[in-house]
C-alpha cells in the first residue's frame, strides 16, 4: 500500500486535526481558566495557558465541602454499584450463553424485549418507591443493576468460548458453578474489565436516577452538586464576592469544579480505552 501522498491526504489530516482540536480544546481552556487570576480572565487574556497562575479556586471548591461530600458518595455508589452489577451480569450471562439450557429462549426473549418496551419514568418511580428504596444508597444500585447492553456483551463473549474446554472440566467432575468460576472467569478478564468500566462510568456520570430517587443532600452524588454549582445561574452574583480570604472568580471556580470531577476519568481513560473499544465491538456482533 505504498502510494504517494496526494492532496487528499493533506486535507484529510487537516480535517482530522480539527476534530482533535474540537475534542481537546475545551479541556485545555477550562484548565487554563481554572488556574488563572480574576483580572486576566475578565480581560479575556486566558485562552491556552494559565495567566497569573494560582490554585485558589481549587482550594475554595474543596473548602466549600459540597464537592467532597459528592465525591465520597459517588465513590461509594461506583464501588458498590459496579460490584453488584458486575456480579449479577456475569452470573446471568453465563447460563444464557448455554443454548441447550432449559428456559434459555424465553428468558432471553424476556430480556431483549425490554430494549424496545419499558414502563416509563413514573411507573418505574412508583416501583422504586413501593420497595422503600427512595432516598437510600440502594436506589443508586438496584434500579439500574443490569444494563441489557452489557449483559449481551458478556453473553456474546461467553458464546465464543470453545465448548471442549468446559466439557473436559465436566468430565473432571466440576459442576456448572465450578466451571464458571474456575475455568470461564479466569479467561474472561478483558470482557469483565470492559463491562465493569461501562458500569462504573455510567454510575459516575449518572444524573437522572439520583435526581429522581434521592432527596437528602447528604446522599447526593457529585453530579447533583455539580449541577447546583455550575448550572445554577450566577450563584455568586456579579462582581467578585469574597469568601474567607479568597476572592471568588466565578468562571475559574466553576471550571475548577468541573476539572476536579472529571479528573479521574481523564486520568484513567487513555490506559483503559482499549477495553471500552473491545466492549463495543463485542456488543455489535449479532448473538
Amino acid at each position, binding site marked *: 500500500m505504498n502510494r504517494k501522498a496526494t492532496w487528499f491526504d493533506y486535507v484529510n489530516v487537516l480535517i482530522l486535526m480539527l476534530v482533535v482540536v474540537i475534542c481537546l480544546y475545551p479541556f485545555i481552556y*477550562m484548565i487554563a481558566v481554572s488556574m488563572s487570576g480574576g483580572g486576566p480572565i475578565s480581560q479575556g487574556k486566558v485562552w491556552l495557558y494559565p495567566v497569573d497562575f494560582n490554585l485558589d479556586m481549587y482550594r475554595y471548591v474543596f473548602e466549600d465541602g459540597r464537592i467532597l461530600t459528592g465525591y465520597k458518595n459517588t465513590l461509594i455508589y461506583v464501588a458498590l454499584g459496579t460490584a453488584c452489577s458486575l456480579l449479577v*451480569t456475569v*452470573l446471568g450471562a453465563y447460563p444464557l450463553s448455554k443454548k441447550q439450557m432449559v428456559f434459555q429462549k424465553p428468558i432471553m426473549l424476556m430480556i431483549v424485549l425490554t430494549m424496545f418496551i419499558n414502563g416509563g419514568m413514573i411507573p418505574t418511580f412508583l*416501583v422504586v418507591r413501593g420497595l422503600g428504596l427512595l432516598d437510600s444508597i440502594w436506589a443508586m444500585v438496584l434500579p439500574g443493576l443490569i444494563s441489557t447492553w452489557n449483559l449481551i456483551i458478556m453473553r456474546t463473549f461467553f458464546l465464543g468460548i470453545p465448548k471442549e474446554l468446559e466439557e473436559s472440566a465436566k468430565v473432571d467432575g466440576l459442576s456448572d458453578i465450578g466451571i464458571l468460576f474456575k475455568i470461564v472467569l479466569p479467561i474472561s478478564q478483558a470482557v469483565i474489565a470492559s463491562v465493569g468500566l461501562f458500569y462504573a462510568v455510567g454510575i459516575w456520570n449518572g444524573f437522572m436516577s439520583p435526581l429522581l430517587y434521592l432527596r437528602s443532600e447528604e446522599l447526593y452524588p457529585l453530579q447533583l452538586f455539580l449541577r447546583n454549582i455550575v448550572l445554577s445561574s450566577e450563584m455568586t452574583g456579579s462582581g467578585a464576592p469574597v469568601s474567607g480570604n479568597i476572592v471568588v472568580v466565578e468562571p475559574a471556580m466553576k471550571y475548577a469544579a468541573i476539572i476536579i470531577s472529571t479528573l479521574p476519568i481523564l486520568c484513567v481513560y487513555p490506559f483503559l480505552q482499549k477495553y471500552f473499544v473491545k466492549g463495543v465491538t463485542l456488543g455489535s456482533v449479532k448473538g
Partner: protein
Amino acid sequence: MRHEILNKKSWIARVRQDRYLLLLVLPCVLYYLIFKYGPMLGIVIAFKDYNLHRGIWDSPWVGFKWFNHFMNSRDFWPVLKNTFVLGFMKLLFGFPAPIILALLINEVRHAFFRRFVQTVSYLPHFISNVIVAGIMTMFLSPRNGIINELISFLGFDRINFLVEESWFRSIYVSSEIWQHLGWSTIIYLAALSTIDIQQYEAARLDGANRWQTTWNITMPGIAPTALIILILDIGKVLEIGFEKVYLLATPAVYSKADIISTYVYRVGLSEGKYSYATAIDLFTGMISIIFIISANWASRRINGNSLW
C-alpha cells in the same frame, strides 16, 4: 398420554440437570421481573385515576380520560413537535457524521496518527451530561464565554445563545455530536476492518481511483451496519435523552426545549399527576414502537437487512 408423561418427565429432568445454571440466572431474572416488568404492570395507572392513598389497584378506572386530556391540552402539539423536530435533527446530522469521520480515519495510513485521532475523539463520550451542559452554558455565556469573545473579536454582535429560543436546537444537536461523534465511529471502523484488502488491490489493478474504491467497495461494505444503526436510531427519534435537555433548557427557551420526557418529569414528579404523566409516556412509547417496526419493515423490503 404416555408420550405426554414422558415429555413431562424429561422436562423436569432438564430442570434438575440445569439446576445450577438456573440458580445462577435467578438474580438476573428477578431484576428484570421487578424493575422492568413491574413498571410495565404499573402502566395500568394510565387508565386509572391514581391516588396515593388508595394504591394502584383500588384507584378508580377512568378509561382514556388522560389520553384525551393530553391530546386536547394546549401543550400537546408544541411538546410533540419539539420532541419530533429535535429527534429528527439529531438523526439528520448525528447519523451521517460518524460514517464520514470513520471513512476519513480509515484513509489515514499513519498508524500512530490514526490511533491518536481515535483516542482523542472517543474522550467526550465519557464526560457526564451535567458537565457537557455546564461547558456549553459557560462557553456560550454572553458575558465572558469564549464563543462570544471570539464573535466580538471578529467584530460581530454578541449573541445571548441560551435565552434565544431559536438557538436551542442547534446547541443541543451540536453538543450531542461533540459528545458522541468519535465513539459512534467504533462500530463503523470495526465493519471497515472486515473488508477484504484483496478487493482494493484488484480494483487498483483495474485502474480505479480512491474515490471509486470508496464508492464501490467501502460504502457497500459498511452499508449493512449503517442500516441497522439507522433502524435503531429511527426507533429512538422520540426517545431523546432526558438529562441533557433538562440541564440545557432555561425557562426562556421552554417553547422550543420542552420535550416529552421533560414534560412527563414536570407534570408527573413535580406536580404529582402520576396517571396523566404515565399516559403521555405510554402514548409516545406506542409511537416509538410503530417507528421502529416500520423502519425495520422498510429496510427488509428494500434490501433484506433487518433487526428481526
